[in-house]
């Protein structure tokens, strides 16, 4: 994981949740839900900076990381939803990467 810079994501930025699965490499504590890996959403706002729970859980020094509220369209993340419905989720900056309109349309289901 790259350390987050201070540049950050402005409200309205289209971002993609990293399609990473650190669970496959050994014990970890991740606060990014599986169902969002690889999905694109829109940054609503910066919530603040908080010690990284992935370090805190193992008693390691935990540098603060930016935490965003990110808005996702309910379908296509879940097909049971109705168009127009949304998911609003807290995601740490090191789990986000910039995404344009093109990659948003192309987001596939995480394996």
């Amino acid at each position, binding site marked *: 994981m790259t350390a987050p810079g201070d540049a950050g994501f402005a409200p309205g930025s289209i971002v993609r949740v990293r399609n990473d699965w650190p669970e496959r490499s050994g014990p970890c504590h991740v*606060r990014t839900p599986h169902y969002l890996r690889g999905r694109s959403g829109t940054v609503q706002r910066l*919530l603040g900076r*908080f010690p990284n729970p992935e370090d805190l859980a193992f008693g390691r020094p935990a540098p603060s990381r930016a935490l965003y509220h990110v808005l996702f369209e309910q379908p296509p993340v879940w097909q*049971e*939803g*109705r168009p127009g419905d949304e998911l609003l*989720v*807290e*995601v740490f900056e090191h789990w986000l990467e910039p995404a344009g309109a093109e990659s948003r349309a192309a987001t596939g289901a995480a394996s």
Partner: protein
Amino acid sequence: MSAPVRSDSPGKLAALIAALTAKGIVTEDELEASEAQTDRASPEIGARMVARAWLDAAWRRLLLSDGTAAAEAIGVSMAGAPPLGVLEDTARRHHLIVCTLCSCYPRAVLGYPPHWYKSFAYRARAVRDPRGLLAEWGTSLADGVEVRVVDSTADYRWMVLPVRPAGTEGWDEDRLTALVTRDVLVGVSLPQAIPAGAESG
């Protein structure tokens, strides 16, 4: 359902507390203070915050911009509690709160979470099929209302500020507070105005 309680759970808890106190990470007094704080909290705190927001525009702005400051302004200790965020329902949007990863819940203003909030079924279905879940709860949304599911995954705790129901014009804070249940504050139910005279029925 949530994981069953195993018969060795109390023993493990005692061993964990002993290890944490031995290392000086927590003291018995701190644990008791924390437990007492949650014991004192109840959904009535959140309900009163909502009722006040329905009556006082300046308070409403404070509640929506900084839930922690709003709670402290009415005497709720938020020391050590995660920041509180309050999400405003409108005529076009309904919020539903869940924690899919565990059971994050705004204990400082709602008390202990109900068992269903921690169940695998609620946690899975709230994000996957929120409208089906709401229907089973007997909650029907008006046409044109969009659902925004809030997955409480990290450092904030969230509470809903519902729309003030019709038929409550002229009601005072106590009467409005009584309409706002724990389920309303999580977003699985909507506040319903009880007709005058039917309250004690």
